[in-house]
């Protein structure tokens, strides 16, 4: 199964949200990273056939998804950035309703709903109304509804936003478990979520594809560019002005800075192992901060 985006562009009036984006997706987990306004959500909405590209093609195994129609949506699971629900429905009823909309037979849906609610730890509140759910619980409902039809293509827009650290770990494990023979694309602002589970990372800026590579290759691309220094506060201010600083920590002898720079920022700067956050800072600079 191959999902191909060829020269995909989306314009709203005079503004290009996505511009000439081409990429190929085969089974595996893909992390979509980019600062706010990079066009991630617009790209995902085109990939789930909610938006029609202004130009370009999105094809599944060579067939345009707009031609596949319901056959494509049958294979699709989508979790939008903002989860909307019927607040007066119980979790079970809402999921049953969406199961029916996805064309899942009623008997089959019941079992799937129970097992998925158990997977995300919401089995006990299955018969509670969604109006009383917290933001984190609603996001988990969002994940469940995306998985109802056992999708071969799973597109998750900011799935971990609003989840507490424990829930995020649980979510990461779920995605890793289910990713086997699917295409999973997830966008996030939390770089560490992608670092552990994504086989490939897509960097996007101003609607354009900046880079698409494995996590290892991206880390390699900033090798020798990450430094740590401990300096007095005044010196720290100067360094912050001049370099991209990915972390600042208070130390007894001053401030410990983690700097991403091609050049050694200070004589006593120590080289560090890069993380995906450093990569993010390197490619997006001050936009990322």
């Amino acid at each position: 199964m191959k999902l191909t985006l060829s020269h995909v562009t989306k314009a709203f009036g005079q503004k290009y949200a996505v511009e000439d984006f081409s990429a190929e997706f085969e089974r595996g987990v893909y992390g979509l990273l980019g600062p706010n306004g990079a066009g991630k959500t617009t790209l995902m909405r085109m990939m789930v056939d909610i938006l029609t590209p202004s130009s370009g093609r999105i094809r599944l195994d060579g067939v345009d998804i707009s031609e596949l129609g319901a056959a494509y949506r049958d294979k699709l699971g989508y979790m939008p950035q903002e989860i909307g629900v019927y607040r007066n429905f119980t979790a079970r009823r809402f999921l049953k309703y969406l199961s029916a909309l996805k064309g899942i037979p009623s008997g089959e849906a019941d079992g799937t709903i129970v097992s998925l609610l158990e997977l995300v730890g919401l089995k006990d509140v299955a018969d509670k109304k969604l109006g009383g759910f917290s933001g984190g619980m609603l996001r988990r409902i969002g994940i469940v509804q995306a998985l109802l039809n056992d999708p071969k293509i799973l597109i998750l827009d900011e799935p971990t936003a609003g989840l507490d650290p424990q829930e995020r770990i649980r979510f990461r494990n779920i995605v890793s478990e289910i990713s086997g023979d699917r295409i999973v694309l997830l966008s996030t602002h939390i770089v560490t979520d992608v670092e552990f589970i994504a086989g490939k990372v897509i960097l996007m800026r101003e609607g354009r594809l900046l880079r698409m590579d494995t996590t290892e290759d991206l880390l390699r691309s900033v090798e020798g560019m990450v430094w740590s220094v401990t300096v007095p506060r005044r010196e720290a201010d100067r360094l912050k002005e001049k370099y991209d600083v990915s972390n600042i920590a208070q130390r007894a002898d001053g401030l410990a800075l983690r700097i991403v720079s091609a050049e050694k920022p200070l004589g006593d700067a120590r080289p560090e192992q890069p993380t995906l956050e450093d990569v993010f800072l390197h490619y997006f600079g001050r936009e990322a901060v």
Partner: protein
Amino acid sequence: MRIVKENKAIPFQEFEVPSVSDQKIEAACDRIAEYLPARRRAGSRGTDGLFRIVLLEARCRTPLYWMLCALLLAFGVYALRFSLWNLSPYAVLPLLAPLPFLSNLIDAFWGRERQVAEIEKTCKFSIRQLYLAKLLVGLACDLAVTAALSLFCVGTSYEGWKLAFSSLTALFWVGTAALFLTGGRSCPLSVSALLAVWVIAGTLALQVPEFYRFAVDLNTAAAAGITTVSAVPFFLKLCARSPKNQPEQEGT
């Protein structure tokens, strides 16, 4: 004559135009197509499965809604069989006729957050089918109640067709107003307000002797004509109330 021939012959020199194979033409078209908007396949989100989705929507209605429909039917039968405050069913029942349609809108959209459409759009059934199904459930209930009451006219002094036409006219006009209102975000609230306004205005209208007499004395053919005219804006609005016509929104 010879000179003219020579002058004409000069521009027509022979050129070799290489013939292009069909494959090459197709390849060029495919390449160019990459830069053009995709053409949506007609019927890819068509009407197939609409019946199934109407049934699903009907199953989603709350017991309160079905109780209201049953109550309305019972009230109508009572009004036809027994005298009711000395008012004619021709005047009273059209006042109540749009209730199943309006209550259905309130019931279907109650508690619905706007963003849920984002999820619904990616399901197998299209959002257009879904919205249409929501409206059709109410319309079907309304028609069923009206038809049942018209049948109950058999054996009474009332004419079933006239009652049906009067009821449908009220349904179409109030339904059109409701469809205008459901374009807004606070759909249940605005439809509830419309319902209240309709019931109050209708009750007040019945106090006006001229209006009351008009409703009672209207002949069946005239009622049929008014119903036909009233149906036009209703069905036009029903078709136009399709999410297909909504503008695309930017992501965040």
